[in-house]
């Protein structure tokens, strides 16, 4: 009598072909691998890290990170010399016993930001950091009069 007789660990982004995989799974995995390789979007991601998005609008730069199951207290976000450092840890009760898993990532921020006005929110396991840009790094409209 069993529910599942194997442990399948395919934690994003490290893909291990452990356990039983169906054709659909392999297709998905290959699709993702080829998609990212051919699209040239994401650099090689190594274990212990987590997916990160970087985007901006006219006032702010945003960094979004997938960190499911992390306590708000265990998330630390700080600006270090033009980069945003995200650190988090998660307590786990696995078959091997209790343990703490740490994650960290350093994201280079292209624009000058107001470090003292950085805010962060955490919802559904996704951390969103809002970094307001400095006035001088915002795009300026320059009117040129043509005679």
């Amino acid at each position, binding site marked *: 009598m069993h529910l599942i007789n194997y442990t399948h660990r395919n*934690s994003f*982004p490290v893909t291990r072909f452990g356990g039983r995989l169906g054709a659909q799974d392999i297709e998905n995995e290959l*699709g993702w691998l080829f998609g990212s390789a051919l699209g040239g979007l994401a650099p090689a991601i190594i274990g212990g890290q987590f997916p990160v998005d970087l985007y901006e*609008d006219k006032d702010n730069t945003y960094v979004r990170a997938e960190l499911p199951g992390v306590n708000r207290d265990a998330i630390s976000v700080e600006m270090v010399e033009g980069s945003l450092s995200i650190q988090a840890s998660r307590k786990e009760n696995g078959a091997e016993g209790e343990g703490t898993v740490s994650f960290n990532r350093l994201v280079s921020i292209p624009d000058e930001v107001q470090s003292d006005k950085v805010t962060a929110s955490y919802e559904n396991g996704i951390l969103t950091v809002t970094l307001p840009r400095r006035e001088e790094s915002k795009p300026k409209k320059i009117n040129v009069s043509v005679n």
Partner: protein
Amino acid sequence: MSFFNSLTPAAPGAPSPAETQALPARRPYYEVAETDGGYTLTINLPGVPKDGLEITDEGGELRVAGKRSNKLPEGVVVLHRESSEAPFELVLEHDNTIDPAKTEAELKDGVLSLKLAKAESAKPRKIAVT
């Protein structure tokens, strides 16, 4: 066919498959632990809100489907993207010794915890010899 489509890069300028059709579901990371009364299933579903979640248990097949609400806001300039908007789907077979009526589910911070109770008939029973 989608297997071959995904292997072949789209021609430059052509819309990518992601833009023309729904993204294929991805299997989320999950763990199963056996407890005294049943099993605890922990599934990572980042970006899935409560109303995007669908859990069914039918004919010995437990299915968890999660639609993600992690679309980027309108009008932003994307500088780097690693996350996916593809929905999650996990289908696990079991031998029907689970009592679906007693299943408890909790979604917190993008992690779903499912407590599956073993059916009474599946629990070990001591038989007294007379």
